[in-house]
């Protein structure tokens, strides 16, 4: 019965847009902030204080060996840590006792034979793993939407369209930088299908610059292809260090799949 009631409460909270969790007498956790700050969330049992689970970690009064009871949220590349001992750098020395079970919100600290993490925050209540996962997923979704909305707000033009042509920016137009990190600027031409924000010239393609370089500085930057369809967020250059004034697509969020068009439209309005 208790479980059902808590589930109903959580559902109501999520529907109401609440993403705060209470941990006893402690101030409520803003899960959206926690999702931004932490990368690994797990429920663990404190085994030993002032110790480390692997060599190479500077041991102090703040370090604790913690057994991972359940992983609640983790980056995809990480194997299941359940049952393993990790080292946690506690936010406050003496803030845990052996045998205590805590939900740790953490970021990576030291990686060697094992893992050491830094505590960002914690929950000491009795939330179920399923509840937490759902709440965290919802917080992550809202964060992503917020980030996209913020990007849309800065965009000069947001359109649905298809890439019809790509050309290297000629040297006369933009002198390449004498650097391995030169973005290798290319210009993409968009056939605009729907304008979601801003004004596009009627009947003419819209162009923007993107970094065709596969250099480490630009490897995660979008690389449009001819024929690619999507939602395009075109911003006047905002990348510090580059002095171009054109519309650009540099950020991975600046290209959204077509199926997000409705969401983008909503966020635009």
């Amino acid at each position, binding site marked *: 019965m208790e479980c059902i009631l808590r589930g109903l409460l959580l559902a109501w909270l999520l529907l109401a847009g609440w993403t705060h969790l209470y941990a006893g007498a402690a101030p409520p956790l803003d899960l959206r902030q926690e999702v931004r700050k932490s990368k690994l969330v797990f429920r663990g049992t404190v085994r030993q204080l002032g110790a480390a689970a692997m060599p190479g970690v500077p041991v102090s009064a703040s370090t604790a060996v913690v057994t991972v009871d359940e992983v609640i949220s983790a980056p995809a*590349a990480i*194997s299941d840590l359940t049952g393993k001992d990790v080292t946690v750098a506690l936010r406050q020395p003496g803030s845990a006792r052996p045998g205590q079970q805590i939900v740790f919100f953490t970021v990576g600290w030291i990686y060697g034979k094992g*893992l050491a993490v830094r505590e960002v925050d914690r929950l000491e209540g009795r939330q179920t793993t399923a509840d937490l996962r759902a709440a965290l997923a919802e917080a992550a979704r809202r964060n992503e939407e917020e980030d996209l909305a913020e990007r849309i707000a800065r965009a000069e033009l947001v359109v649905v369209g298809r890439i019809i042509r790509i050309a290297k920016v000629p040297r006369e137009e933009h002198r390449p930088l*004498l650097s391995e990190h030169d973005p290798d600027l290319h210009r993409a031409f968009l056939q605009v299908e729907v304008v979601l924000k801003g004004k596009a010239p009627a009947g003419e393609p819209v162009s923007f610059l993107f970094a065709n370089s596969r250099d480490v500085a630009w490897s995660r930057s979008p690389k449009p292809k001819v024929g690619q369809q999507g939602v395009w967020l075109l911003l006047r250059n905002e990348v510090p260090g580059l002095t171009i004034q054109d519309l650009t697509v540099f950020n991975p969020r600046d290209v959204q799949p077509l199926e997000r068009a409705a969401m983008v439209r909503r966020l635009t309005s």
Partner: protein
Amino acid sequence: MRRSSSRLPIPFVAAIVSLAVSLMTASVGFSQIQVVNIVPAWRSNETGIDSEPNLAVDPANPLRMAASAFTFDSMSDSNAPIYVSTDGGATWTLNSILPGESPDFATHDVTLRFGGTSGILYVGILRGDAAFRLNILRAADFTAGTPMTLLVSRDHVDQPYVAAATVMGGPSAGTDRVYIGNNNGIGGVGTTPMATIDRSLDAAATPAPGGFTPLLLETRPSLEGDGPAIRPAIHPDGTVYGIFYRVTDVSGLSPSETVAAADVVVVRSDEWAAEATPFAALTDPSDGLAGRLVATGLTVPAFGPVLGQNRLTASNLSIAVDPQTSDRVWIAWADRVGMTGYTLHVRRSEHRGVDWSPDDLLTIDHATNPALAVSSRGKVGFLYQQLTGPAGSQRWQTHFRRSVDGTSWTDDVLADTPADTPAAENEMDVGDYLHLQAVGKDFYGIFSANNAPVLANFPSGVTYQRNADWTTGTLLPDSGPGAVDVSIDPFFFKVIDTAPDQDFYVRDWTDGTGADAGLEPSTHPYFFTTSDVWNQLSDTVPTFNADDQPVASNVRNGVGALGDNFAFARVHRKGAGSAADVSLHFLYANFGVGLNYQDAGTAVDPTLTFPAASTQQTLSAGYPWHLDPTTSEHLCLGVEITAPNDPFVLPSLWGSSPGWPYTDLRVINDNNKAQRNIQILPTASALTGSGTSAAVSGYAIVHNAATFPRTVVVRYEAAPEVVKKLGGARVEVVGQRARPFRSGDTIRLEGMQPGENRWLRITFEAPSGRQGEILPVYFREMVGNAAVNGFALVALPSRLEDVLRHNLEMHRAVFTRMAALTGNETAAGESRAATALLERGEISEQSYRDFLREHGRPLADGLDSARKHTGWKASFYDRRQARRLGRMRNVSRAAAAHTAALNELDALLTVRQLAAGDPADILQNVRWQRDLYHRMGPVPGAEVVLRKSEEFISGYTRRDLGNADYSGFVRGLLGSYRETALALRSPELGTAVAGMEQRNAGSLAALQKAHRSFLLVLQGLPGAHPILP
């Protein structure tokens, strides 16, 4: 002082190189190679392209290392990681302590270096959350896992490359000097990227921005700018080199061709880049502008062409300076020879970058990522990656080559891995650069390669931390079943050039906190006070104090057994292993700076036998050496050790002095050499009861060991508490006005001729320290920014009885010496009187007072007599005071005055003795002669003199010749000397030749003096006068 290549004659360098080669060839092939994949086990799932690695090894503790690569951290909110090892590279962790990581863009271009002795890590990065934004970072403890301190943030910067060193001597001793090459101005409005070095003169202690200032290297007008690679290299003497590509034409940078025309430019600073116009010391003869154009008109592939899967980006430059001499510098660059491919070129300059080997010393085709480093033994290491095999089955071979002469090279293949897999979507499967560092004799480096766990891919062996199945050649995940795709990983490697069980050293220092671990260069600025070479007056088993320092005795002169001394040394090696023998050679020099060493004793050199399990051996029986009655007891003791695979670095100290004939750091750089140069002055402490004090003086010689006239600079320093206790201390060049002792001041001895001696005197009130407290005052000879030599005068507050005994022993020694030198019977009587009192056992205050009453007058007479011969004026200790010695009611005061008088008399006797010539300067004379004739060019007699001089120097350095051959050497050149005198129409020179002829049958000292007189005259003639640096 600015250095000039004119100071370093080419034949001399050639001789040294040749000798070094002959001695080191035997060991050039040895290597103990360790290769480690540094990806930690916990990251076994990762499949990234972790290329473009960099490495920093802490020179003060080579167990501590930091490394970087294109390694990202999905577990961090905003930080990027570095690799950390604290066990010499055997195991590694990954610590996320670099700022600037963003979910969208990665922090990159990470290079790292430690300060020379500070242990502080300096890092340059380009942030991921902005384009071309440089961050300069600092971490006092890079292992703590806390984010590094941000010092500098600046936009429009490319490829920061860090170099760092700690100043070992002089006014800035202990400060970290950091130099970060970078291409400044990239992408800016109206700016052109220009080669720049961000410099900090005190990066450890200065708050953000850490004292960093961008210094422009480029001096030529340029429309195109410079290439992204700007590499600095530092020598401990304050020389800083830089190298960069100056791009002259980018018209080829079209999508189809993508090549640039470029020159390779080398710049140099002689003053830590602290001059008003830094990096202007090296100009090009073509236009007189700063920056030597070493290679011009190169075709450099840039930003398009690939070698294998790796792009070519005009980033392939390296520069390394020889720790033994900043005159010798090595460079490597890459260009395109012909229409395709990529070629590495290695060249060397022996003259501070002024001129270069005309042809490549090494040329490697189809290769990239050159990295150079030079070991403490002058051995150059060259790391690069070469693409081999036909298309479709190409491989990256990572080579590490070594050479002592640039001609013969060893070649160790560290990795031979597939170059076609994995697909490197960013065209960076090995990266734009890698890194090589020398620490002492050993080399440390890092490269990136395919990480398939296949032993055949690593001919020098390898260990992995990440999980792998070597049987199936499969990478395994961090837990559970399955396999992980092959990717690119960074590989650390270490090449032990001398096996630890064959790497022997004599500690330069030991103190309560630790001891020299054989590091080269030594990490302690005072390498001449607590070293593991010492003297004892008896051949008894050595003892060590609570700080593990040997208990040493001052040397003693005298007739027969009284002048017998025993030299001792303690030798360590870096690891146990096989049994080995080490031979020890002891030398001594007069007390001061610049004094040339001579052999101590004539007995066969002792040998220390190391059993297999032993890492430390001490001579149990001292090496006997005798100080005849004419010798001062104020001396410096040195030792050079030789093991079968670990000889000391030539040249020997024999016949020369640390720092000369060129600005070496011979003892600091070579752990097979050690010296002890310390004079202890026991003083009656205030605690002995009297409460009053008196002035005590110590003396030291400053000798110009160079082969040209110069200003010798001596810097002196003492801890503030020592200065306070040495009340009213003052220092003076004898004959000049005394000045108050202020720690950090320098004395300039202007216009000193080669072989000339001048004297320093330091005077202080008997200190108020507690008994046994050591109060050292350090003096160091500075050449430019380098402390090349030094000594310590140590006040030692002592029990009154010990002071009285010390004074009586000194009374005996000084008058023994005076008697031997002058035949003065009164002096002999003084010696006997002091001996008689010493032999009575306990010295009471009354007996000492009685002694002074009786012998104060002879002491005053002795001083007067000695002063007449030297021209020294009466010091504060005058005849009247000497006569009053015995009437002083305060024995402590009387003892201090007695010490001062005896020290002065001893110094006066040395002045007189050296004025008659000094066999220790024979080799210096011959070097000086060689350099003078070399400068004069083809005058009659020169050819023979030059040839014979080179033969003598070479033979002397090899110990095939010695002082006994000097007379014959001079005699054999008399005819040539006469030819020279005749041709130059110099009667004075003719007279000087006659002087040599006359004294050729006399003592070595007299002949050396006559020879020096000849050289002085010759030096003053037109054409022979040196260009003063």
